[in-house]
């Protein structure tokens, strides 16, 4: 072993740990923030720390959280998906129309909605891969187009959820709503996907340096198709959950979800430049936004300053720690 090698060995053990801490410090900070809010909630409101409210917050988190996971995967590849909100809207309409209140139509409705997600994801993948348009532009255009399609399908409430689908929303396993469980299961799956699969590694590689990924012979295009399909699927699934939540297909839902998911993902320490992502961070970001909204209601905060408080919390959450540069 030459001397330089010996030198690096001596130094490297401590470094790996330091690097880990530097990368994950922000995420710990987010959880500390959440803890602070929870403490405020417990001390300032009798009803915050009740089984019912916690179940509520957990279930609500799933709505933002599932899309946020999809968004995170896309951002990991240095992409972005601005169309998720509009896709949720169209998914709600499609599933409601196909289901039309009939139990027999539940499966076709689910399949149709998921197929919609797959198709939209494939179109995104095509435009980004084959026509080489920036993801921001592709999905911005898609946001506008899908909104138009949503309005074309129906500008007023349509369709209906079947009884079971509506019951799915309130179903619980013990004290935990099944929707919350579903979300946490997806969190774990995503965690495993990123850590233990080739697909996950390729997402990092493409986001870290697409050119290198290409030169290393990775299936860059296929992986990109895959990740945009996954993200669109997450929006489609969320559309189905919304149907279960509302019972009827309402085009009023969906605007602005994209911004919320991106905020949650970034608060969670994922880099918009790609190549770095944190599932637990994203979970933290989702919970932080959810708990903030819940607390504003629970504490009966003066209506005029609610917006201000939300703004301060978001800005503080992203500004509190210095994010690493590219």
């Amino acid at each position: 072993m030459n001397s330089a090698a010996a030198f690096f060995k001596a130094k490297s053990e401590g470094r790996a740990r330091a690097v880990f801490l530097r990368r994950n410090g922000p995420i710990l900070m987010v959880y500390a923030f959440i803890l602070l809010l929870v403490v405020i909630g417990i001390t300032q409101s009798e009803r915050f720390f009740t089984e019912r409210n916690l179940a509520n917050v957990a279930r609500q988190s799933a709505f933002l959280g599932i899309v946020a996971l999809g968004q995170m995967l896309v951002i990991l590849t240095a992409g972005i998906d601005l169309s998720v909100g509009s896709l949720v809207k169209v998914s709600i309409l499609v599933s409601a129309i196909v289901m039309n209140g009939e139990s027999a139509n539940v499966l076709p409705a689910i399949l149709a909605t998921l197929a919609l997600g797959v198709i939209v994801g494939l179109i995104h993948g095509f435009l980004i891969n084959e026509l080489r348009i920036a993801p921001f532009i592709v999905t911005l255009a898609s946001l506008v187009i899908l909104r138009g399609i949503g309005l074309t399908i129906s500008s007023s409430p349509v369709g209906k959820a079947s009884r079971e689908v509506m019951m799915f929303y309130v179903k619980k396993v013990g004290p935990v709503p099944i929707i919350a469980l579903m979300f946490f299961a997806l969190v774990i799956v995503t965690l495993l996907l990123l850590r233990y699969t080739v697909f996950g590694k390729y997402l990092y590689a493409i986001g870290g340096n697409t050119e290198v990924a290409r030169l290393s012979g990775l299936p860059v295009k296929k992986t990109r198709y895959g990740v945009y399909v996954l993200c669109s699927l997450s929006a489609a699934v969320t559309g189905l959950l919304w149907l279960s939540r509302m019972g009827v297909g309402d085009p009023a839902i969906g605007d602005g979800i994209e911004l919320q998911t991106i905020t949650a993902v970034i608060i969670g320490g994922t880099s918009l430049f790609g190549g770095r992502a944190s599932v637990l961070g994203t979970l933290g970001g989702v919970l932080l936004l959810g708990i903030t909204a819940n607390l504003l209601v629970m504490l009966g905060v003066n209506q005029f300053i609610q917006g201000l408080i939300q703004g301060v919390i978001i800005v503080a959450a992203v500004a509190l720690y210095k994010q690493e540069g590219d």
Partner: protein
Amino acid sequence: MQTERSGIGAPDAAFPNMSEYILEMLNISKSFAGVEALKDVTLRCKPGLVYGLVGENGAGKSTLMKILAGAYRADAGEIVFKGQRRDQATTADIINSGISIIYQELALVPQMSVADNIFLGREPRHPLGILNLKQLYTRAGDLLARLGITLDLRLPVSELTIAQQQLVEIAKALSQNADLIVMDEPSAILAGDELDQLFSIIANLIEQGVTIIYISHRLEEVFRIADEVTVLKDGEVVAARPLAALDRPTLVELMVGRSLDEIFPQTQRERGELLLVAENIATDTILQDVSLEVYAGEILGIAGMVGSGRTELARALFGADALTSGHIKRIGKDDAAWSSPAQAIRAGLALVPEDRKRHGLFTALSVRINLTLPILSRLTRLGIVRRKAEERVVQAARERLSIVMSAPDQETQFLSGGNQQKVVLAKWLETAPDIIILDEPTRGVDVGAKFEIYKLMRQLNDRGIAIIMISSELPEIIGMSDRILVMNDGRVAGELTREEAGEARIIEMATRSERAHKPA
């Protein structure tokens, strides 16, 4: 690892319907944006030999290799590898068919770990695309151990120095068990032990029948390892000969088109007054307790092993990294001190950085903008750029350093590596500095340009300018420096005068271990 390889001993069995060549690139042509980068280039390689590929900056070497890799498509010509047409293959096909390439510009994913990078695209896996992490780490560990490189496999490569990254890159190429390995200037940032290590790796590969295409501007390396040399000039092959049929002056003449006086230029100078003093400076990198003095009209060489902190020293002197202790003072100019590059520039310093893509160049911007950026205040009146003055500067720079470009408005990303380096150099010379720090100034620069740069350095000295030169090329350090500081583990291990300096002496100082007392 290499034992898994098959068929190397018996090439005829592996590719039956074939000539003696493992690779044939025939009549390749390629043009970019109207510039003909390659014209009718033919390159043939037999198994088990080392092919040197040389030529001036911009001659088309990297382009030829990128075509081989499937990263670019040739406009015309065909590629036959192991008896099969490969000119329409994708990068993945090429890698799978047994070619691996070490690119001139590092091809690693910065955020991913060393092990992940080495096996990128060929991860050991269980069914369903699930990673076999155990194998990933053991195989990566074995590979590095065999190459004599010790690195933390889990460290993101962005945390490594570029020399270390280069080693990872080599490991990555070797892990592919290729029959043909292309190395595009692998040695540009390696020195001493690392370089020897590289050569022993190459020797080892040759023994196993692997073919190597080796691109380098360091001709002594080419003479040391190549069996055959192909010379490219302006996108055309001007010679393809066995090494034995060549000597150095002939090779240089083939490349440059004229004979070249390859001696370090000397001048008769007196050391001038004291310009800069650094006392006990340290930064939060590995740099510790470094003191130095710089005098007008001298060249202060900084030698050291990869990772010894030379680049850190340069950045600290230039105000790019904050000092955690000590201080730097400019003597004479009101004894100015500084804490940012902007202030350092005002105090008369310039830094030509080592990693030109990341720190030196605006690749999306034109040569013109790159050249005039630090001296804009001189070229503007009331903040408005004077076009004529600017044009003069650009033309002067272009001529002085013979920068090859299609027009001043060409984006620098389309220049060849060496010409990019010249642009960075020219940019700093325009600031008319008193002290200029050159971090690996001739890395990736062709012989012709290299000696231009040496001459230029001397001219600068004659004008009283002090030069701090960091280099991994010992002949260059010894040939050019008036004094040499040898760095070791972030400290100054010693200072040598020109007379005292010798390769062995420097290497000894740079590698002497003082770390016995350090915790492992």
